[in-house]
C-alpha cells in the first residue's frame, strides 16, 4: 500500500486516463471528477426518464398495432437506459432516489428538448429520427469515456438505441411518401423539432464552461460544436432524400469545409426552456412527481412484505 500526496495521486490518476485505462468505482479520483460525473450521469439519466413522457403521450393513440408495439418497446428501452445510468451514478456514491427527488423538486437538469410538446403523430417519427439521432451522436463517444461503469452503461445504451432512430426515420419516411396531409404533418413536425434538436448538443464551445476539463478527463470526448456539426452533416442529406426541407434559410453546403454552414441558434429560447419556462416543463415534472408519490404506498408495502417474509424464513 502506497502513501501518496494529493498531487502524486492526481498525477497518477491523469496518467491512467491518458493511457486510456478505466477508472473504477473504488479507485481514487479527484473530488471534482466525481462531482462532474455524478452531475453528468444523473442529468443523462433524468433525460431518459423525462424523455419517456412526450413519447408515452402517443402510445395509446398509435395508428396501428405494429407502431404501437414499436413505440411501447422504445419508450420502455428509455426507462431501461435511465435505470442503467442511475446505477452507474450510484457507483459514485449518489443515491438514486435522492437524485430523483432533485429532479422532482425541479432542481436537477435534464435535456431541454423533452419540454416541448408532442402534438401530432409525426412527432413520434421526428423524435426518433432527430432526438434519438442527436442522442446517439452524443452517446457513442461516451462508450469510451474514462469512467468504467458509465462507459459500460453507454455500450448497452448505444446497442439498444440503434433501433430507436431507425423506427423514427421509418415513421417520417412513410409520412413523407404518403398523402399531402401526411407529408404536411412530417414537414410541420420537422419545423418544430429541428432547432431544439440542434440545441441538444449544448452551448457553443466558446460558452461551455465544463468542456475543457471534461475533455481532459475523457468524460467528454468531442466538443458540443463538433458533435452538432456532425449531426447537421449527416441529417441534412437524409431530409433531402425523403423530400423534406430543413427550416433554416442559411443552411448551405460549404465546399471548402466539406460541411454544412447553418444559421444561428436562438440561445435565448434555449436558456428560457432550461430555466423552466418551456411549454411543458411544469407538466413533465408534475408527471414524474405524481408517479413517485402515487407509488409510495406500493413501495412501502413491498418493503413491509419483504421484512415479513424474511422473518418467516428465519423462524
Amino acid at each position, binding site marked *: 500500500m502506497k502513501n501518496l500526496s494529493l498531487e502524486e495521486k492526481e498525477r497518477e490518476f491523469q496518467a491512467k486516463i491518458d493511457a486510456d485505462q478505466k477508472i473504477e468505482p473504488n479507485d481514487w479520483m479527484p473530488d471534482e471528477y466525481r462531482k462532474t460525473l455524478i452531475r453528468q450521469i444523473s442529468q443523462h439519466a433524468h433525460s431518459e*426518464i423525462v424523455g*419517456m*413522457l412526450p413519447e*408515452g403521450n402517443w*402510445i*395509446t*393513440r*398509435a*395508428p*396501428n*398495432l*405494429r*407502431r*404501437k*408495439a414499436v413505440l*411501447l*418497446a422504445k*419508450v*420502455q428501452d428509455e*426507462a*431501461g437506459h*435511465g*435505470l442503467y445510468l*442511475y446505477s452507474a451514478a450510484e457507483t459514485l456514491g449518489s443515491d438514486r432516489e435522492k437524485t430523483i427527488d432533485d429532479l422532482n423538486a425541479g432542481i436537477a437538469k435534464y435535456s431541454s428538448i423533452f419540454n416541448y410538446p408532442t402534438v401530432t*403523430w409525426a412527432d413520434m417519427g421526428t423524435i426518433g429520427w432527430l432526438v434519438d439521432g442527436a442522442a446517439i451522436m452524443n452517446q457513442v463517444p461516451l462508450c469510451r469515456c474514462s469512467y468504467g461503469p458509465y462507459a459500460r452503461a453507454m455500450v448497452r445504451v448505444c446497442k439498444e438505441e440503434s433501433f430507436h432512430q431507425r423506427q423514427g426515420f421509418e*415513421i417520417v419516411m*412513410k*409520412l413523407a411518401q*404518403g*398523402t399531402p*396531409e*401526411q407529408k404536411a404533418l412530417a414537414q410541420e413536425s420537422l419545423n418544430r423539432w429541428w432547432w431544439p434538436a440542434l440545441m441538444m448538443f449544448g452551448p457553443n464551445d466558446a460558452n461551455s464552461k465544463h468542456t475543457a476539463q471534461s475533455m481532459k478527463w475523457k468524460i467528454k470526448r468531442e466538443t458540443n460544436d463538433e458533435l452538432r456539426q456532425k449531426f447537421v452533416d449527416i441529417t441534412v442529406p437524409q431530409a433531402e432524400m425523403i423530400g423534406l426541407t430543413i427550416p433554416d434559410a442559411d443552411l448551405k453546403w460549404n465546399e471548402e469545409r466539406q460541411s454544412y454552414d447553418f444559421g444561428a441558434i436562438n440561445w435565448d429560447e434555449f436558456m428560457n426552456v432550461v430555466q423552466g419556462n418551456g411549454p411543458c416543463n411544469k407538466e413533465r415534472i408534475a*408527471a414524474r412527481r*405524481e*408517479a413517485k408519490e*402515487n*407509488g*409510495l*404506498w*406500493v*413501495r*412501502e*408495502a*413491498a*418493503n*413491509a*412484505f419483504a421484512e*415479513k417474509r424474511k422473518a418467516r424464513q428465519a423462524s
Partner: protein
Amino acid sequence: MNREQALFEYTLRIADDSLILGHRVSEWCGHGPILEEDIAMTNIALDLVGQATNFLEYAAKVDGKGKTADDLAFLRYDRDYRNALLVEQKNGHFGDTMARQFFFDVFRKLFFEGLTKSTDETLAAIAEKSLKETKYHLKHSSEWVIRLGDGTEESHQKIQESINNLWRFTEELFFSNDVDTMLLESGIAVDLNALYPLWKSQVAHVLAEATLEIPSGTFQQKGGRTGFHSEHLGYLLAEMQYMQRAYPGMEW
C-alpha cells in the same frame, strides 16, 4: 350462424381481451410506482399487444372479407368489440390494476392451457406462445396481490377494496353461449364451465396467502362478450382509433 362465423366471434373474444387490456396496461408506461415496475408492466403490455395482433390476424383470415388485423383493431364500432368488461375497467391505482390483472391472468392461464389442445391448429399454436407469456404475467400479478395484501395496513385495505370492486366482473370471463356450444362439438373451443371451479380455487389460494377475503354475494355484471360495454370503452376507443378516424384510409 355457421362454423366460420362462430370461429370469428370466438377468436375476437380472445383478441379483444388482449387488445383492450394491453391498451390499459400501456397507459402506465412512464407512470409506474418505480422504474423497475414501469419496465415490467410495459413488458406485459407488449405481450398483450402481440397476442392481440396474432389473434386478430387469424380473425381477419377466418372472416375472409379482406380486412387486416389493424382494420379489426381500429375500425370497428363500440358494439362490435367482444372483450370482457373486466379488461376495459380503468387502471385506477396500482392495486386496482394488479387485481384486474390477477383475475384475468388466472383465467387466461387456464384458458390458454385448454386452447393449446384445440383442434384448430392456428388457435392452438398462438395459445402455446401466449401461455408462456401469461404464466409470467400471473406470477407477476399474484406476487403483487400477495405483497399488497400482506404488506402494510394501508396496502391491505386498498387491495381488498380493489378485489371487492372488481369481483363483479369476474364471472363474465366464463360466459358462454351458442358460439361455444358449436365450437365445443368440434373440439375447437375450451369448456369454460369446467374452468370456473379451477379459477375459483386458484384465486382463493392466492387471496388466502395475501390474507385477503373473497367477496361474497356480489351481483355479477355481464355484457362485454355480446357487445354491451361499460361507459369506459367508448373513451378508450376514441383514443385508440383517433388516427384511423381522423385520417381515414392512410398508411402509417
